[in-house]
């Protein structure tokens, strides 16, 4: 269902862009090529993937690129099993996965992961210890943190999420997550959930943060592009695009495009830190 939605979005964006085409030199490489690229996996990657797909497909009508989510685990699994051409992951694939599927990894950006709350929430700064207590369920009410008197609703992601992986390891130090925590299945769904729930706390990729949610400063450092870039904000990970074996043809061109000046600019525009 989500896949279909994303496809519709991609098609829609292509049409809207027909009016104002922007041509970059990096796109030249795709000239004369035709075919499809199937992309799935990490949901943090989606804005960049969609933008890149949009630019390529606007210029070259014979190339079709589908972008689906599913999470990092799914991305690695599907590319390994040959169901998609590029499997995105918000964590480095595990050595066992790399070996089993003969994965080639391409890290094209760095991304921070930060806790977020609803804009109506007055609690917008926590210490690491407080954050851990909130997620473990030890601190159950916002009033204990100086907010309104209402139970805290903790939102988390499923085990195969790369965003969850880095947040759990680096922000919660592999601490427990309350069994009462609600599960959502993508960065987008997390943002929607927190934006609609004034008593929520969750975590999303820095690239996904916008005015609908407020990032929570951790030990006084707010998760922003600048603090992640400078290394001041520590909860960060690489964004990977993985292929089974060395990429060839269109897939190779797509990966090259991500590393081109234009591709890296897209990554930066979408709130990630380019690697070049």
């Amino acid at each position, binding site marked *: *269902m989500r896949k279909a939605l994303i496809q519709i979005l991609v098609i829609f964006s292509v049409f809207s862009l027909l009016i104002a085409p922007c041509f970059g030199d990096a796109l030249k490489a795709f000239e004369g090529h035709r075919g499809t690229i199937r992309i799935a996996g990490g949901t943090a990657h989606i804005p960049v993937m969609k933008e890149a797909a949009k630019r390529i497909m606007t210029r070259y009508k014979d190339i079709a690129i589908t972008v689906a989510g599913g999470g990092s685990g799914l991305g690695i699994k599907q590319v390994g099993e040959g169901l998609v051409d590029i499997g995105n992951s918000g964590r480095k694939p595990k050595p066992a996965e790399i070996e089993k599927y003969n994965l080639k990894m391409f890290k094209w950006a760095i991304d921070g992961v930060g806790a977020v709350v609803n804009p109506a929430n007055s609690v917008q700064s926590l210490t690491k210890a407080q954050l851990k207590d909130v997620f473990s369920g030890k601190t159950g009410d916002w009033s204990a943190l100086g907010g309104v008197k209402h139970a805290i609703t903790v939102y988390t992601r499923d085990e195969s999420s790369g965003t969850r992986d880095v947040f759990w390891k680096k922000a919660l130090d592999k601490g427990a997550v309350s069994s009462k925590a609600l599960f959502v299945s993508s960065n987008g769904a997390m943002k929607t959930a927190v934006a609609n729930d004034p008593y929520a706390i969750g975590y999303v990729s820095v690239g996904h943060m916008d005015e609908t949610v407020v990032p929570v400063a951790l030990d006084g450092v707010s998760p922003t592009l600048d603090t992640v870039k400078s290394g001041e904000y520590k909860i960060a990970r690489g964004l990977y695009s993985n292929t089974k074996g060395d990429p060839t043809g269109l897939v190779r061109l797509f990966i090259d495009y991500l590393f081109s000046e234009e591709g890296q600019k897209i990554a930066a525009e979408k709130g990630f830190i380019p690697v070049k």
Partner: protein
Amino acid sequence: MSNLKEIIAAKVFFLSTIASAVMILAIFGFMIVLAIPIFRAGNFTAIWTGPWAPHEGLYGIWPMISGTLWIALLATALCLPLSLGTSFVITSLGGLHLRKVLGTLVRFMTGIPTVIYGFVGVFLLVPLVREGIGGAGMCVLTTGMMLAVLISPTMILFFTDSLLAVDSSYVQAAKALGANRIQRLLYVRVPGAKGGMVAGIILALGRALGDTLIALMLAGNAIQVPHAVLEPARTLTAHIALVKAADFDSLEFRSIFACGIVLYLFAATSTVAVRRMLRKKEVSF
């Protein structure tokens, strides 16, 4: 010549029946085989009755089984009075125009994709429940209410069909005896339609047990056994959707097949129950 053709046709149809029956049984066997690693890894009963804590090596699916039952039973309970009322209006109580409009509407409802209900739930029902009743909003109650809407066409159409299937000579006879509309409905149509109506309830329950998207979007998917309708819960289907991305060889992923077995048994039980109900009904006429 035509005899030969008939024999061939009979054989072909018989073979396709066998094929589909074998396939259904094979799916069950397939799930058991694929679930073997999880049966071997731990205590067999703990898988069905224990908690879900993958980091501690516990892969029990009891929270999901109980979440599924809570949500499906609540949805059916909420749906029943709605469907009874609607089917009564459609079959006997409403005016001709109202009957037609309602009938069309219910048929139209069967075609609405569940994701639409899911989105309506997320943006409309969840905040309403959170502000109006309390809790996090994503909970058993919200999901039950939305699912009740989803399964209502199944129930209403079954109720309506069985109420209308009651022999009209009985209804006419009751009318001749001076029974009014409500009496004819309650004392002639409803008793005659009982078997079909129970079948409708069971089928609707089956739909509620099997739905994925609404529970995934609205129930909160927390891995705890719910103790109240305002608590979040995770259904078996939502659990499958959430852990399907796990590594193929992990026990987490294998738990999907344990969930599948439970869902399969739920479906089989409700199908057998419906069959029995309908058979009984046939005999009574």
